[in-house]
C-alpha cells in the first residue's frame, strides 16, 4: 500500500506520549487489581462470600457484570473486565476518529492526500495504531499477571479480553468515521454504539441474577447482542472460554472491511450520511447570541435526552427482575452487609445507577462548556464578538446551556425510569445534578482561565469514574470521597436537601460565576 508507512509514522509520532501513558496505566491497573485481591481474599471462604455478594447485588452486576467463579482472579479482576474493557474501547475508538474524520474535517488530511498515498492509508494506519496499542496492553497485562502468580490461562484470557475489545471498538469507530461528515457527529455515533453495548450487557446480566448461593450460568439474550457481552463471556479466571474471542474478531474484520470499502470509494470530506441543504434565510428566532448557542447545542441535547430516556426505560425494566429478589433470605443478609438498613435492594440499585448516570451526564455538561473554548480557538468567537455582543453574555450563554441541558437530560432519565418502574423516581434522578454542576463548573473555570485547558474537565471526570475502582487500586479512602458523586442523595426515599447537596450547589454556582467573570476579563484566544 502506497504511503502507509509514512502515514503510520505520522500517526504514532502525534500520539507517542499518550500511547506510552495508556499502556503503563492499563498494565498498572491490572497489576494493582490483582495484588489487592491477593491481600484482601486470603482464604476460600472470603472469596466465596465476595463472589456471592458481588453477583447478587444488582447495581454491581449492572456496572461490572457477575463474578463467574470464586477464584482470586475472577473476584479480583471483576472491576477490570467489562468496565475497563469498555474504557479501552472508548480510548481506541476516539484515537481512530482523531486520525480519520477529525483530520479530514480540519483539512490536514487533504494536505496528506495530495502526497502519494492511497485513500485507505490513513484509516488503515489509524486502525494499526489502535490494534497495536490494544495488543500491547493485552500482552503486557497478561505477562505481569502471570509474573504475579496468577493462573496463566486466566491471565492470557484476560489479556485477550482487553486486546480484542479494544480492536473491535476501533473497527467500529472506523466505520462511524466513514458515515458522518463531522468528527463530532462521528464521535456521537460511536458513543451511542458503545453505550448501547454496555446497556444491553447490563440488562442481560441483571435479568439472570440469582440469590440462592449459586453463581450465574448464562446471561440473558440481550448480552449476546453486545460486543461487551461477548468479551465478558470469555470469563477469565473462571471458565476461560476462548470462543467469544472469535466473535469479537469476526466483528472487527467485518466492520473494517465495510469501513475500508466506503473509504476507498467516497469523496474526501464526504460521508455516507449526506449533509442536507440549509435554509436560505435565518429563522426569525436566530437573532441573538443565546439563539446561536441554543442552535449549536440543540442536536446534542436532543440526542442525550433520547439516550437518557432509553437508559431510564432499561433501568426501570431491570427493577422488576431485582424486585423479585427482595424477599429472599440471602438478599436480606447482603443488604445488611451493605449497611442498607431501612432501604431495599431496588432503592440501592437505583441510587447507584443515578449516581453513575450523573457521571455520564457530566460529560454532556463538560462538552457544552468546552464548546465555548473551541469556538474561541477556531476563531468563530472572534467573528461573533466583532458584532455588538458583550463577551460576558456570550460566555454565560454557554454556561447556562450546560446547566439547562444537564437538567433536561437528568429529567429524561428520571422520566424513563419512572415509566417502566411504575413509581415516581424523577426526584432521585435529578438529585445527582449538584455533582454534575460541580464538574461542569470545574471544566468552565479551567476553560475560563485558558481556552487551551479544555481537557481539565475530562480529567476531573475520569478521576470521578476512577473512584469507583479506588478500592482495587489501593487508593486511600479520602480519594474516593473527593468525588462529588459520593455526596449526592440519589437513593429513592433519601432526603435530597442535605447539607452536602447545598454545599455542592453553592460550589457549582460560585465556580460558574467566577468562570464567567474571569473569562470576559482575559484576552480572547486566537
Amino acid at each position: 500500500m502506497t504511503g502507509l508507512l509514512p502515514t503510520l509514522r505520522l500517526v504514532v509520532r502525534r500520539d507517542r506520549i499518550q500511547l506510552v501513558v495508556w499502556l503503563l496505566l492499563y498494565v498498572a491497573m491490572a497489576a494493582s487489581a490483582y495484588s489487592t485481591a491477593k491481600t484482601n481474599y486470603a482464604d476460600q471462604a472470603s472469596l466465596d462470600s465476595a463472589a456471592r455478594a458481588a453477583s447478587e447485588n444488582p447495581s454491581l452486576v449492572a456496572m461490572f457484570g457477575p463474578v463467574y467463579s470464586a477464584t482470586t482472579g475472577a473476584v479480583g479482576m471483576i472491576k477490570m473486565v467489562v468496565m475497563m474493557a469498555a474504557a479501552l474501547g472508548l480510548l481506541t475508538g476516539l484515537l481512530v476518529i482523531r486520525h480519520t474524520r477529525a483530520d479530514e474535517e480540519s483539512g490536514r488530511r487533504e494536505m496528506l492526500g495530495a502526497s502519494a498515498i492511497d485513500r485507505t492509508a490513513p484509516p488503515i494506519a489509524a486502525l494499526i495504531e489502535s490494534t497495536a496499542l490494544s495488543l500491547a496492553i493485552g500482552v503486557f497485562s497478561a505477562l505481569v499477571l502471570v509474573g504475579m502468580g496468577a493462573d496463566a490461562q486466566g491471565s492470557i484470557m484476560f489479556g485477550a479480553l482487553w486486546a480484542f475489545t479494544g480492536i473491535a471498538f476501533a473497527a467500529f469507530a472506523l466505520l462511524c468515521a466513514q458515515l458522518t461528515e463531522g468528527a463530532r457527529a462521528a464521535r456521537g455515533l460511536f458513543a451511542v454504539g458503545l453505550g448501547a453495548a454496555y446497556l444491553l450487557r447490563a440488562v442481560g446480566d441483571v435479568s439472570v441474577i440469582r440469590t440462592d448461593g449459586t453463581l450465574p450460568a448464562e446471561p440473558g439474550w440481550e448480552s449476546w447482542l453486545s460486543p461487551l457481552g461477548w468479551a465478558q463471556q470469555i470469563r477469565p479466571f473462571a471458565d476461560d472460554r476462548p470462543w467469544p474471542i472469535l466473535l469479537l474478531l469476526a466483528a472487527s474484520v467485518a466492520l473494517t472491511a465495510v469501513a475500508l470499502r466506503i473509504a476507498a470509494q467516497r469523496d474526501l470530506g464526504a460521508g455516507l450520511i449526506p449533509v442536507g441543504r440549509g435554509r436560505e434565510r435565518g429563522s426569525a428566532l436566530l437573532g441573538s447570541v443565546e439563539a446561536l448557542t441554543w442552535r449549536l447545542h440543540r442536536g446534542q441535547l436532543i440526542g442525550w435526552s433520547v439516550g437518557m430516556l432509553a437508559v431510564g426505560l432499561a433501568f426501570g425494566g431491570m427493577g422488576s427482575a431485582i424486585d423479585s429478589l427482595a424477599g429472599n433470605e440471602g438478599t436480606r443478609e447482603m443488604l445488611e452487609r451493605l449497611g442498607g438498613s431501612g432501604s431495599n435492594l431496588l432503592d440501592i440499585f437505583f441510587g447507584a445507577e443515578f449516581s453513575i448516570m450523573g457521571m455520564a451526564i457530566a460529560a454532556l455538561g463538560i462538552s457544552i462548556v468546552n464548546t465555548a473554548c473551541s469556538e474561541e480557538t477556531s476563531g468563530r468567537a472572534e467573528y461573533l464578538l466583532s458584532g455588538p455582543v458583550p463577551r460576558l453574555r456570550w460566555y454565560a450563554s454557554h454556561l447556562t446551556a450546560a446547566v439547562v441541558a444537564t437538567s433536561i437530560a437528568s429529567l429524561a432519565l428520571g422520566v424513563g425510569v419512572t415509566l417502566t418502574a411504575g413509581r415516581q423516581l424523577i426526584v432521585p434522578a435529578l438529585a445527582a445534578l449538584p455533582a454534575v454542576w460541580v464538574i461542569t463548573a470545574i471544566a468552565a473555570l479551567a476553560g475560563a482561565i485558558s481556552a487551551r485547558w479544555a481537557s481539565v474537565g475530562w480529567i476531573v471526570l475520569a478521576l470521578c469514574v476512577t473512584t469507583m475502582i479506588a478500592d482495587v487500586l489501593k487508593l486511600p479512602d479520602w480519594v474516593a470521597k473527593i468525588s462529588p458523586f459520593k455526596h449526592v442523595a440519589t437513593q429513592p426515599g433519601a432526603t435530597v436537601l442535605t447539607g452536602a447537596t447545598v454545599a455542592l450547589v453553592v460550589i457549582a454556582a460560585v465556580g460558574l460565576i467566577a468562570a464567567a467573570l474571569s473569562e470576559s476579563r482575559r484576552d480572547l484566544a486566537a
Partner: protein
Amino acid sequence: MTTEVVRVEGLTKTFGSAHALNGLDLHVTPGEVHAFLGPNGAGKSTTIRVLLGLLKKTAGTVELLGGDPWSQAPALHRRLAYVPGDVTLWPNLSGGEIIDLMGRLRGGLDEARRAELIERFALDPAKKARTYSKGNRQKVALVAAFAARAELMILDEPTSGLDPLMEEVFTQCLAEAKAAGTSILLSSHILSEVDRVADAVTIIKDGATVETGSLDSLRHLSRTRVEATLARPVDLAGTAGVHDLQADGDRVSFSVEASDLGRILGELAAAGPTSLTSRPPTLEELFLRHYDTAGAVR
C-alpha cells in the same frame, strides 16, 4: 475638528515575554480607505484584535470611533463591521443564516443590499458552512459586512481566498462603501489591491510603525521607474541619481529619485527618445524598501 475613526498611539502588546506590538501608531481619518501593511507576523491581526476589544492592550492609547475598544466593545461594534483574515463559520449553519444572524445582532440589515451582494458575489446562501470553500466562507463574511452599512469596516486580508473576478467585485463594493462615507481599515500584504483603492497607508514591521502617510506623499519618497527607447545610445551608468539600470540595445530602463527626475530627463531628451514611459512606484516597491534587508530594489 475631525475626530479620528481609529487613533492608536504607542500601542504595546506583550504575550508573556514575547512582544507582539512595540509602540505602534495608526491613525484613520473619517471616510478614508487606510491600507495597513506589513509582512506576516508583523502584528496586523494583533492590532485589529486590540481594536476589536478582544485583546487587552499592554500600554499605549487606543481609541476606536471615539471610545475605548475594551470597555465599550458592544456599543462600538454596533457601528462597525469586521471580516477576519481566516473566516471560520459554524459548520451546521448555512451562509444565509450566518449573514442574517450577524445582521440581526447589529439590529437589522439592509434587505435589498443583502440580496444584491449575494447576487454579485455569486454566493449560494443555502449551503451549510461545512461545505463552503475558503473563498466562499470569505464571501459570507464580506456580504455580512457590506450589508451592515457600518461607519467603519475593518477588513483583515479580505481577498486572500477570492478569485480575480471576485476580487474585482470586492474592489467595487469597497469603492461604493467609501462613496457612502464608510471609513475602511484594510489590512493586506497583497499590495496591488490596496494600491488602487487606498488613500493612506501605514506600514508596520516587528510591531512598530515604520512609515505612514497618504499614498501620494509616500510616493514622493520613492523612485520613479523610467523606460525609454533611444535613437542614440547613451551611457547612463555613471550618472548620479540613476539606479537599477538595465540597458538592452536602444532600450534602457532605470529608477530615479524624484529630486533627480528633471535633470535625468534632460539628458534623455538629448539622446532623442522615440518612446518614453514612466510610472509611479507601486506599493510593492514602497514595501520592499522597508523589508528587503539585502537592498535588492535599491
